[in-house]
């Protein structure tokens, strides 16, 4: 009897569960049907989660997208060309010495929680970020002092001439929210408050899954046309592309290159190779910090030129970068293409193995023992270069295969080591390399990237590594750097920067292999109004100030919503559930019967 009653109890429970399941499905479908009409959702797929919503702690690209949408800035950047346009400030004036700027904010500004946004919020953000050295603010605010003259006016004074002003593109934070956390260790604040002044503000973050931002009704340009943006995390790039094709997401960022190429030319999906000045370079050790044991041959400009001539950049771009990006052999110092100089033809270091061989022969680097590897002039140390590459880059192996082959053809041998970024940073700091392949992504203003190659940035103490990773610098470059850093005439500054980049190119301490691009794609049937920043070449998502989101409009009805009908998968799930439950009931009835027979 005991077995039987147990079996029947389970059977009844299972039946109850089945009935319950069917009822629940009915209600889920009903609530799903209501959603699409009321909420317009843009869903963006990506492969990198937020590191922190806290702008004083996070440092990943995904977090910048959150802050770009959540926090407006005093001055904004035009989508087309990064021109400085009014943001929270509607106008500004400069003092005659160019050291003091007075900004007047728009009237009636409010934070998303309804609190007034005042000049005091601006002054507090600038001064506190300077004092506490917030990692994403201090590069801009280090020399600034801000004073709220009244409710709408803020005066900003710089202690040194700064050509970046009047641009004030730091995220202004709501003092009434952040003042408390700033009293302690501000970097430990979770920052899930979702209070901002940009078009969208954070509503919820589900780490490892997604974060959701909702339209800010108090945004100074007006409420956005879409109600919410969901950033959805995919661990695997192929799965993200499948979700885009299925319509589970509307756009995807960081699409794997091979799948990106496959999607090109489709009617229902637009692919965007968005450039922001980022580049991949092959660097040679200039050894000016006095650290490490770089190969002495690299001190010879002719050897560096020979290495540059040995590399077929066209082939690398086609075979390794899959022609995504731009073929350009100069530093990318800005997301804005106006800073890119054209190198005169007679100074270009194009693929020319014969020229490479000639330069090496003329310099006395000969292969005297016939083993295929050249030696230093007069014999002795062979031209065997230690070649370091990043394990994190999917292009490293392809570049190495081709480059080491081409170097071998001109009599230069290589010993390859693969490092993760932390290890490679240490190896570079110690100067224990001859060649490495890495890259940089610049800001909009060229100054930060240009500063990395000054003599001040050459590492002289292993414990305190600086940014000049090729250990090369020159007085001429430094003088030009200081000049452009304080030049307030824009055209003159562009010219100075062009001179610096050309000089750096000709020294060939970096052989810039190509300029990279962000691989993005979006569906054509959901939203219109995608903006590339800068126009024609930049990305539509994760651009410098992310103007796309506010500009998007849904196409037709049902955009970005869920299907009204119960999906086939859900139906299968129910049928499978039903079969399992019925099976379980059958099993327990049979079992209780057999036990009963046995007892009888």
């Amino acid at each position, binding site marked *: 009897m005991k077995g039987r009653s147990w079996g029947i109890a389970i059977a009844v429970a299972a039946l109850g569960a089945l009935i*319950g399941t069917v009822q*629940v499905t009915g*209600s*889920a479908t009903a*609530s799903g049907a209501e959603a699409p009409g009321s909420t317009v*959702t843009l*869903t963006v797929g990506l492969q990198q*989660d937020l*590191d*922190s919503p806290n702008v004083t*702690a996070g*440092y*990943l690209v995904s977090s910048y997208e959150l802050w770009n949408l959540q926090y407006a800035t005093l001055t904004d950047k035009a989508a087309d060309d990064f021109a400085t346009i009014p943001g929270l400030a509607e106008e500004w004036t400069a003092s005659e010495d160019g050291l003091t700027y007075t900004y007047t904010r728009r009237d009636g500004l409010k934070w998303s929680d309804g609190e007034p946004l005042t000049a005091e919020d601006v002054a507090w953000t600038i001064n506190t970020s300077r004092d506490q*050295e917030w*990692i994403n603010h*201090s*590069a801009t605010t280090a020399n600034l002092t801000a004073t709220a003259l009244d409710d709408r006016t803020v005066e900003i004074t710089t202690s040194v001439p700064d050509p970046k002003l009047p641009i004030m593109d730091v995220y202004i934070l709501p003092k009434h929210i952040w003042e408390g956390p700033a009293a302690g260790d501000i*970097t*430990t604040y979770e920052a899930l408050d979702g209070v901002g002044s940009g078009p969208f503000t954070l509503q919820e973050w*589900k*780490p*490892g*899954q*997604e974060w*959701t931002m909702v339209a800010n009704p108090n945004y100074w340009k007006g409420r956005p046309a879409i109600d919410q943006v*969901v950033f*959805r*995390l*995919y*661990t*695997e790039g*192929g*799965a*993200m592309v*499948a*979700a885009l094709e*299925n319509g*589970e*997401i509307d756009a995807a960022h960081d699409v794997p290159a091979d799948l990106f190429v496959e999607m090109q030319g489709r009617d229902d999906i637009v692919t965007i190779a968005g450039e922001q000045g980022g580049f991949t370079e092959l660097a040679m050790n200039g050894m000016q910090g006095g650290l490490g044991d770089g190969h002495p041959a690299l001190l010879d400009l002719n050897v560096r030129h020979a290495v540059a001539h040995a590399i077929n950049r066209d082939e690398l771009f086609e075979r390794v970068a899959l022609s995504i990006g731009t073929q350009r052999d100069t530093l990318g110092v800005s997301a804005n293409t106006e800073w890119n100089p054209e190198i005169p033809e007679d100074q270009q270091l194009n693929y020319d193995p014969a020229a490479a061989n000639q330069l090496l022969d003329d310099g006395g680097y000969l292969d005297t023992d016939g083993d295929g590897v050249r030696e230093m002039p007069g014999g002795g140390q062979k031209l065997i270069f230690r070649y370091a590459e990043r394990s*994190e880059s999917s292009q490293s192996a392809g570049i190495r295969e081709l480059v080491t082959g081409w170097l071998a053809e001109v009599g230069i041998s290589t010993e390859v080591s693969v490092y993760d970024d*932390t290890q*490679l*940073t*240490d190896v570079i700091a110690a100067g224990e390399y001859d060649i490495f392949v890495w890259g*940089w992504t610049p800001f909009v203003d060229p100054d*930060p990237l240009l*500063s*990395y190659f000054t003599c001040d940035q050459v590492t002289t103490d292993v414990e*305190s*590594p600086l*940014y000049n990773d090729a250990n090369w610098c020159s007085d001429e470059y430094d003088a030009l750097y200081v000049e452009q850093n304080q030049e307030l005439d824009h055209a003159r500054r562009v010219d100075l920067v062009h001179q610096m980049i050309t000089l750096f190119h000709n020294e060939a301490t970096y052989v810039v292999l190509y300029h990279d691009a962000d691989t993005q794609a979006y569906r054509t049937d959901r939203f219109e109004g995608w903006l590339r920043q800068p126009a024609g070449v930049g990305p539509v998502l994760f651009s410098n100030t992310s103007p796309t989101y506010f500009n998007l409009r849904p196409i037709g009805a049902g955009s970005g919503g869920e299907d009204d009908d119960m*999906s*086939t*998968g*859900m139906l*299968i*799930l129910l049928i*499978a559930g039903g079969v399992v439950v019925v099976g379980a009931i059958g099993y327990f009835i049979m079992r209780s019967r*057999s036990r009963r027979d*046995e007892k009888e």
Partner: protein
Amino acid sequence: MRAGFVIRKVVGALSTLAFVVVFNFFLFRIVNRDPVNSMFRGRNLKPEKLEELRRKFNLDGSKWDQFVAYVRQLLHGDLGYSLKGSRPVATVIGEALWPTVLLVGTSTLLAMIGITLGYRAGWRRGSAFDTTATSFSMLTYSMPEFWIGMVFLGFFSAKLGWFPVGGLEDPGSHASGLSKWLDELHHMMLPALVLGIAYVGEYMIVARSAMIETLNEDYLQLARAKGMREDEVRRRHAVPNARLPVVSLSAINFGFIFGGAIAVESIFSWPGIGQATYLAVRGPDLPMLQGLFLLISAGVILANLVADLLYGKLDPRVLGR
């Protein structure tokens, strides 16, 4: 069960855990590393700021200082900060734990169908059922789970669109209660099925061979001689004796529940421990990896302890050893 036996097993488990804590710490510090420089590359931060960040991630001072600080933190349940996100490791792991227990737990239970199949196949050794079930098990056992995952994802999600491509619930979902539960079930179906298929063969093969070992035992003959039906002989006399190897396999697999399923969770973007491990390795995020290794080791140690204690219950002869 004897108290001495239990104490011996518990002390053994605790000392293994202590060893893991020490080993874990030094394993990740064999290479002299300072991730702070590469994390903030190009930020123009002042040296004092970098020092402050090193302190935060427990990277300042000698190895021994770091170890003492690590153990002290650990005793307070603090696993340090993840390099990605500056969030406490314990919080990140805590968030990933439930999705993993749900997914791997469900698929382990699904895979346990293999035990019944194995017993029956072993009992009727050489029959058509045995041949079919064994071939099926060998096939699924030899297929890597990431491969099954890719095929299922490509076919059922990408091509047919029956199931979502990944995640725990629909994008931007604010569902609660039972509709949330159903949504999660819909998302879990494919990964759970893939893991279930990947595990079922192992259970089936172990259960089958354990059953075959009991087939010629005298007590089965005796049971038959008493006039018991074959089905009863199998259920009451053969199965209980074939249970030991299956118990230890199940225990170990339950221990691995906390380890998640790295390949399947990554393919289906399932926000569990497996995905967290994959992302931490990709970083590499050492404090996170350290925390995850500790959790996974503790899971396996605990499961083994439970298996040992269960052994004592199932086979009292073990107690004397």
